[in-house]
């Protein structure tokens, strides 16, 4: 379980101090699929980095399973960034091995299983620049899954892909989520993706970001793309759009 207790974040440099996140309170259940959505530049990424422990909140506290994130504990969390951030000098397999390598685990632990999971068996010995954008992002997902994280943070991971690829990866992500059951926090600017993927959607206001609404998506699970055609789905999308604009 993840709990955010009156989180504030202020950006500070010599000239300005800018309040980007104001008093966010959230609690996210284990195994839940949460999307965070809001106007661009509102601080979604900052919020994700706070949860990841890459940034410190100016005020407030973040608890992962009742432990503060700033304590150096081996939390099982992984991040998938907007760019795949693959190391160009490593083969696909070696890129996926990176988390094992950095944590002094057996190099091949879980590697083939995850390569298989994202369907890249044929490309394990290729270099990143030989793969398309969608395949590179698959590698990033496999890498993020290698340590079997209980929390997966995703920062607009598919935003640079075309719609066909995005839909395909959304489906694969749901399949992976169903199989491994991590908690997923998914930052996106696509309302349709958020509704399609999530249990709950957190809508943020523009800067400074506050929680505007929290919306439960009561669509049946094992969702297929056709669900986007239903009236119910479109009602959710419309409802959110009206609150973001």
């Amino acid at each position: 379980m993840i709990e955010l207790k009156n989180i504030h974040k202020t950006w500070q440099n010599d000239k300005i101090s800018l309040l980007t996140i104001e008093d966010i309170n959230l609690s996210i259940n284990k195994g839940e699929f949460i999307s965070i959505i809001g106007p661009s530049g509102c601080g979604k990424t900052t919020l994700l980095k706070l949860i990841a422990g890459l940034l410190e909140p100016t005020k407030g506290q973040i608890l992962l399973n009742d432990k503060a994130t700033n304590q150096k504990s081996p939390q099982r969390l992984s991040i998938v960034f907007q760019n795949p951030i693959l190391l160009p000098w490593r083969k696909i397999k070696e890129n996926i091995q990176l988390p094992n390598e950095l944590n002094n685990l057996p190099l091949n632990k879980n590697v083939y299983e995850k390569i298989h999971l994202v369907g890249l068996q044929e490309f394990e010995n290729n270099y990143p620049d030989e793969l398309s954008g969608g395949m590179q992002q698959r590698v990033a997902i496999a890498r993020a899954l290698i340590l079997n994280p209980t929390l997966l943070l995703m920062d607009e991971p598919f935003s640079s892909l075309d719609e066909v690829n995005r839909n395909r990866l959304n489906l694969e992500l749901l399949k992976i989520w169903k199989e491994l059951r991590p908690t997923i926090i998914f930052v996106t600017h696509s309302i349709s993706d958020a509704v399609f993927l999530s249990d709950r959607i957190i809508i943020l206001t523009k800067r400074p970001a506050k929680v505007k609404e929290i919306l439960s998506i009561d669509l049946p699970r094992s969702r297929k793309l056709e669900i986007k055609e239903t009236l119910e789905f479109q009602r959710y999308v419309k409802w959110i759009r009206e609150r973001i604009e």
Partner: protein
Amino acid sequence: MDKRKNRINSWRLPLLAFVVIIGIWEISTDVFNINKIILPDPYTILISIITNWNILIKHTSITMIEALFGFIIGTLIGILIAILFVYFSKAKQAFYPYAIALKATPLYALAPLLVMWFGSGIFSKIVMSALVAFFPILVNTVKGLTSVEQESYDLFRSLSASKWQVFTKLRLPNALPYIFTALKISTTLSVVGATIAEFTGSSMGIGHLIVNASYYLDTSLMFSGIVMISLAGVLFFYFVDYIEQKMVFWQKND
């Protein structure tokens, strides 16, 4: 097959240009009856190279050994100081601007001073080579080590990588293309450095040979020396270029 064809094609025009220029040179020395002491024709130079082959090889190797040692020393010290700069930002703030400025200065002007300090033997030449090779390497290594994207650091931090791991698995490989760019520049600089230091005072090396030949108005031998050291310098450059292609295979060169 296509690749090979392309390679041959890319050589064809430069080769033609070479033949044309040498041809014009050869003919014009005849037509305008130019004194061989002022400008010997290519054929005379070729004969001079063949007859003086042993001496030329000896002196070229001496200069190249000086250049190679200087190059290696300059490279090692350059990379080492770059690493220090990156991890001790106060040192970088204090000295880096001078490094950038000195990179663009003709440090060859120091040659007489170095010969005075370190003698007319091989050592002053190595110092000169090392000095001119050093600055490009330092500046580029700093650039390479600091040009890592914030997201890559975030990735490594989120995987609880140690500082050492960030250095060896992220920053250093990221810097390699920058380092090799500098290495290629420094191959040429170090050969020039050694040669110029030999001009100012030495008893061996291609610089010595050229200066000596000028006393005897043996212009053909001077040209022979120039040709030999140029070829050696080019070979040195392409050797490093070859290693670059093997080591920095992910960077597509144009």
